[in-house]
Each structure stands twice: as C-alpha cells, then as structure tokens.
C-alpha cells in the first residue's frame, strides 16, 4: 500500500467506526423515546405536556437548530471546494446558532425547574429531562468539538487534515438535527396537541 492508499484506508476505518457510534446512539435515543411515550401520561398530579410547553418558543429553537445544520452543510461544501473564507464564515454561523439553541434550551429547563417542574416532579418529567437533556448534552459536546477543530486549524494551519475531520463533525451535527425532528414532533407538537 502506498501513502495515499494508506490514508484512504485509515479514512474509511474512521468513517466506519464513527458511523457505528452514531447508529448505537440512535438506539439509545430510541429507548429514551419509547420510555418517554410510555411515561408521558404519568404526571403524578402535576402539569401535563400541554400545560408546560410553549410550541411557539420551541418552533424558534427548532428553526435555529435546522439553520445551524444547514450552515454546517454549507461549511462542509465550501471546504470541499477549497473556499476557506466561506468555510470559516459558515462554521462560525453553525457554532453561534448551536450556542443559541443550547441557550434557549437551558433557559427553558431553568424556567421549568424554578417553577417546581423539575425532573424529580413526576415520571413524565424525568423521562422528558432525560431525553431532551441528552440531546442538549450532545449539542454541547458538538460545540466543544467544533471549538477544538477551530483551535487545531488555527494552530496547525494547512498541516491539519480539516476536510476529513470536519466531515465527521458534519455528519454528527446533521444527525443531531435528525433526532430533534422527532423530539419536536413527539415531545412538543404531540404533547401540546394530543
């Protein structure tokens, strides 16, 4: 194997490993979705989903996360067409929007806990905070990851294999938005309407 083949082979292996991780993560989210759907009516006399959630607020954060995912795709595209400046702008937008989403989620959680509707109030709220909180934790880790990429790119310049590494981050970030489609639909839209 020559140098180029070896690099391509390593790239393939990293992709396979990362994809396997994402699929197992899918399973984890699936189990938590099932748990949430089973426990959603067990409110222990407390407020139910339709009394707690404001769908307009969630619509805003959903669109913010979707736009962040879109910006991440554009950044990946710019990178593959060697447009470094556009890449930096799109990556900045991705991170800012991701941080805004996380901020809104933390505000929502803080507000709920302050009103006495924390994860200890009922089985419904425990399931809710576990599912949505795990997604939020993934977003926080993604932001950290993007920050590390920016830092490494800044330190190492063109020696840093940003195309390959950002490709994995882009898959992760898109995947988180895919999970959010179902949180928006099942937890919030159905929670408010049904």
């Amino acid at each position: 194997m020559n140098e180029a083949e070896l690099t391509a082979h390593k790239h393939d292996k990293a992709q396979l490993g990362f994809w396997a991780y994402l699929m197992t993560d899918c399973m984890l989210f699936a189990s938590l979705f099932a748990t949430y759907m089973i426990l959603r009516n067990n409110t222990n006399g407390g407020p139910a989903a339709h009394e707690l959630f404001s769908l307009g607020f969630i619509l805003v954060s959903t669109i913010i996360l979707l736009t962040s995912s879109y910006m991440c795709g554009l950044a990946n595209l710019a990178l593959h067409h060697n447009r470094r400046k556009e890449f930096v702008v799109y990556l900045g937008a991705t991170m800012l929007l991701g941080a805004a989403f996380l901020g809104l989620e933390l505000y929502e959680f803080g507000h709920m806990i302050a009103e006495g509707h924390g994860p200890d109030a009922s089985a419904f709220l425990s399931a809710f905070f576990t599912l949505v909180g795990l997604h939020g934790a993934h977003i926080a880790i993604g932001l950290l990851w993007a920050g590390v990429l920016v830092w490494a790119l800044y330190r190492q310049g063109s020696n840093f294999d940003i195309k390959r590494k950002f490709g994995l981050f882009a898959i992760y970030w898109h995947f988180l938005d895919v999970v959010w489609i179902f949180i928006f639909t099942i937890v919030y839209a159905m929670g408010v309407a049904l």
Partner: protein
Amino acid sequence: MKKVPKPYWREQVRYAYAYVMAAGLTFFAFALAQGNLLSGSVLAAVLLAAAAAQLYIQSRYFLHLDEKGELPKWRIQSYLFTWFTLLIIVVGSIWIMFNLDYNMMLSPNEMTDYMLEQNAKGF
C-alpha cells in the same frame, strides 16, 4: 468509480432546497398542532408522516445517503437496519406497555379478588 464534481452553486442549491423543505415541514407540523383542523389519532398520524418526510429529506440531502456510487454500501445498509431495529424497540415497547397498563388497571384489592377468582377456576 470516479465522479465528475458538481459545480459549487448546484450543490448549494441542493442544500437550500432541503433547508426550505425541512423548514416548511416544521411550520406545517406547528400549524397543525396549534390549529383545530385535525385532532386525535388523525393528527398524530399526519404529524408522524411530516416527521418521516423530513427524516427522508435530511437523510438524503444533508447526510447524502442517496449518493449510491460514492458512498460505501455499509453506510446505507446499517442506516436502514438501525431504523428497522429502532421501530421494533419503540413500537414493541409501546404495544407491550399499553397492554400491561390495560390489564393491570386494578386497585390492589381488586387485583387480589381477581386472582383468587382465577385460582378458584383451577389451572
């Protein structure tokens, strides 16, 4: 298989298309959930269908799972297998727990009476 790279603007248009479609489906779900047009299981079915449509759009245009010649086969295969397993977990859990709930909705005293009654029938 060596691919001819698509022009930059055409790939940008693909992303923009997916973004508009996904946002549209989100607004659609929001409007249905807030409005009074549909309710009950019909609403639930339409909301889930909108989510599935958005899943398809994002998998295809953001995760690029449609590029058959360019992606390794294991990616789309493992993706479909994951969704298959995931549906078994979610639908199976809900089905079992619903039945359990339905069959166990007796107070402790009622349950004792019920079980004594069943025992009296013999095995």
